[in-house]
């Protein structure tokens, strides 16, 4: 696939060169932007508009954090021109595998971005005085609940309440560990750099999750699987992403996304440039293009998550804006716990805890 498109491009260049010498000045070389991103972050109409305005061909590969890192690690940062990892997953990975190159902020149109979010992203993606990420889309994980159990489940640990036994689902991944730790009154983020303290927090969370296991219907592994479980009513409370909750809310007002008492967990997906990107120019063009308010709103409408673009909210669908406001009042927004960068080695510890929980009876 990659090889064939590369050779087509070569042909296109040759062809356009011939055409240009023949006097057809408007023939341009077919450029290509290979984007690895999340579902919904590159809607078809946005891609089409970008291709029309710039003449650059966009190849979209859908992915997630782990998959993105694995793919780029396998090639040493080649194969894609622009990636969209979460802001907390850049520094550790960069230090270990060296797969990104620093962002040249002079080429980013920062005026159309929310300054607070740019600052937060720069802080969490800084390595040796260079920044590796531009904020793009942000969101939170919290709880999706049916109205029938909304009084019972107001925090992560309430998923272990006997009243919802057998009707609960969450992932066996790191956000669950973090969420439970906060709900149990601890602060895992503050313990990120203190191995022993973090280990003791994890030990307590491990016990809690093992106790809670009998309450869980199944550990969900994919977004569609979770939505199906909630839609059919087989699961009435789950720890999940806000966008999924708002999507379900549009279908069935009985289902809502709520920010847990101990705070929703906030993430920012960024733009990062792979180290061996072949078309950086197009990557910056894409960043500046999709962060225009009207375009960013289209991404919000498609993915359900809000962007770092300034003033995009005006163009977002009214239902989505209402659902967002219903889930987050000002205090809930201020209570969002933003993921700090993950220090290397932490994930190995968390992995062992997750394995133990999976194996426990």
């Amino acid at each position, binding site marked *: 696939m990659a090889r064939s498109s590369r050779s087509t491009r070569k042909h296109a260049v040759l062809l356009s060169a011939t055409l240009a010498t023949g006097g057809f000045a408007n023939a341009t070389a077919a450029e290509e932007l290979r984007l690895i991103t999340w579902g919904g972050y590159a809607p078809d109409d946005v891609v089409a508009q970008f291709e029309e305005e710039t003449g650059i061909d966009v190849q979209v590969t859908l992915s997630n954090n*782990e*998959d993105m*890192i*694995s793919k780029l*690690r396998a090639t040493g940062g080649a194969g894609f021109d622009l990636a969209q990892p979460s802001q907390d997953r850049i520094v*550790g*990975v960069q*230090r*270990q595998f060296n797969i990104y190159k620093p962002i040249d902020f002079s080429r980013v149109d920062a005026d159309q971005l929310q300054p607070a979010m740019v600052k937060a992203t720069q802080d969490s993606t800084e390595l040796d005085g260079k920044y590796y990420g531009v904020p793009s889309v942000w969101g939170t994980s919290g709880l999706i609940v049916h109205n029938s159990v909304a009084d019972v489940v107001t925090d992560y640990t309430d998923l272990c309440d006997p009243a919802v036994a057998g009707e609960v689902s969450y992932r066996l*991944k790191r956000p669950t560990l973090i969420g439970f730790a906060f709900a149990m009154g601890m602060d895992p983020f503050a313990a990120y750099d203190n191995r022993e303290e973090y280990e003791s927090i994890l030990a307590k969370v491990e016990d809690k999750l093992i106790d809670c*296991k009998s309450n*869980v*219907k*199944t*550990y969900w*592994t994919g977004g569609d*699987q979770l939505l199906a479980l909630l839609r*059919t*009513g*087989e699961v009435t409370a789950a720890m999940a992403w806000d966008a999924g909750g708002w999507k379900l809310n549009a279908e069935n007002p009985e289902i809502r996304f709520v920010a847990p008492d101990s705070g929703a967990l906030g993430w920012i997906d960024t733009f990062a440039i792979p180290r061996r990107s072949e078309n950086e120019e197009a990557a910056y063009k894409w960043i500046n293009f999709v962060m225009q308010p009207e375009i960013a709103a289209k991404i919000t409408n498609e993915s359900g998550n809000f962007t770092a673009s300034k003033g995009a909210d005006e163009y977002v669908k009214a239902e989505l804006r209402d659902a967002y406001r219903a889930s987050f009042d000002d205090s809930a927004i201020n209570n969002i716990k933003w993921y700090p960068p993950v220090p*290397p*080695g932490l*994930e*190995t510890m968390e*992995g*062992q805890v997750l*394995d*133990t929980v*999976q*194996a426990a*009876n």
Partner: protein
Amino acid sequence: MRSSVSRLSLWLLLTPFLLWIVLLVLLPHLQMLRVSFQVRESWDTLTWGLQQYQNFFTESYYWRTFVRTGVMSLFTTFLTLIIAFPIAWYIARLARGRSKGILFMACLIPFWASELVRTYGWMILLRESGLFSSWLQALGWVDGPVEMLYNDVAVIIGLVYNGLLFMVVPLVTTLDGMDENLVEAGYDLGGGHGTVLREIVVPWAMPSIVSGCIVVFMLTLGSYLTPVLMGGKDSAWFTEQIFTQFITRFNWEQGAALGVLLLVLSSVIVWLGLKVSGQSLRKVMG
């Protein structure tokens, strides 16, 4: 002159096969073997060692998952054989003309869809709000919805279904070629159904039984989608472990060691199976 031409054509014919074996099978495995002996000291230094292999034996989670996967795969293989044998017998010996072809196609057609689609099919049938559950309720046999998904039985159902074809095909081929007179002679000499089956049919079909079992066992052991999607919270499958190490933990070293162990241990199980059944690989695969 003539011999050099034929030698050249032999090499030319062999080239695609050799390229395939060396580039896509041998090299990746050797690379994986090499990675499995690397130990990450800190985030950017590596040394050689057996750390990953030690982890497998000391961390009970890994070897318990492996034993579980092995035992469930053996059970699945056995169950597949029990179910496939009567089907194959019917297709090969009893069905005639058109119905034979139709029955064979009926076994084959589900495999035109991918494993993912077949697994989702089973999920639609078995889930709490699914087809079986609502039928049972409509018949008045149960009061509320029944959850049949997310347990080991569901996983085995899915795995047996995925393996069925690979058991039926070799059995049909062998049973088809069996001389009717052998069976007749068995009855003439006073044997009952059981004796004829045990003394004549099974020994005749043994090579294909073993080859079918090897294929189904390997497929089951290496399957990923069915256990993950249908298994629920207690299910752990060894391939899932390998996937997790490579993809979500970025721990290629551990993943590679588990991969090598899966290859070695499954080969040992197959070898033991051949020894126990008194078959040789050449006879079974030839």
